[in-house]
């Protein structure tokens, strides 16, 4: 079995960077009394919501398998990791803003933004699987950013 040195280094570096980012982030948050009960509440909710998104992705991947599309275990695990961590991060940005904003984000805009993000991830994931080229996933970045922008911004009329 061939061992990819680059992938091994990338995985280790990714894990180290993630742990360091978490450690420094928590250190800074602790200074501002940020690790309080609202923090725990928000991140508990975020974990819960990201599992719903991951369940949706598992359902989509199972459906693709049933339709006869061959999926390697590395590809499936990669997509699930991407969907889980991605949804965790996005929801983790939206919830604190919505909680501590001086005005509530309009629910219709948040819902629309989430639909845009979820649709783009699912569509481009399917395209990348069908074309057998993961580069298609990069095309989902722009619609995801647009979805995020829609979800997080409120127009002036909403804020008054």
């Amino acid at each position, binding site marked *: 079995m061939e061992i990819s040195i680059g992938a091994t280094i990338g995985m280790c570096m990714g894990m180290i960077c993630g742990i360091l980012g978490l450690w420094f982030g928590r250190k800074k948050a602790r200074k501002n*009394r940020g690790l309080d009960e609202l923090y725990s509440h928000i991140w508990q909710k975020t974990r819960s919501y990201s599992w719903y998104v991951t369940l949706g992705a598992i359902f989509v991947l199972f459906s693709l398998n049933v339709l006869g599309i061959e999926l390697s275990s590395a590809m499936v695990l990669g997509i699930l990791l991407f969907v889980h961590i991605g949804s965790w991060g996005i929801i983790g940005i939206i919830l604190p803003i919505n*909680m501590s904003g001086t005005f509530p984000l309009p629910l219709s805009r948040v819902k629309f933004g989430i639909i845009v993000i979820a649709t783009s991830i699912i569509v481009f994931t399917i395209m990348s699987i069908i074309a057998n080229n993961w580069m298609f996933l990069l095309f989902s970045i722009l619609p995801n950013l647009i979805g995020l922008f829609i979800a997080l911004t409120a127009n002036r009329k909403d804020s008054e």
Partner: protein
Amino acid sequence: MKNRIRELRKSKNITQEELSKQVGVSRQSIIAIESGKYNPSIELAYHISKSFNCTIEEVFIFEEGRM
């Protein structure tokens, strides 16, 4: 659950930042509690009430049927 934090804070001339320091939470938590988006734990509610020299019932108004 409604609360009178903003009103009491204004009457005592305390900023959100000062109140958050007194009770040991972030300013974002005070904003979320003030705006009614987050209901604090009994412990935090006690600390907030204590900082205004009030009882919990004087600061937090429980609404029947909203659980």
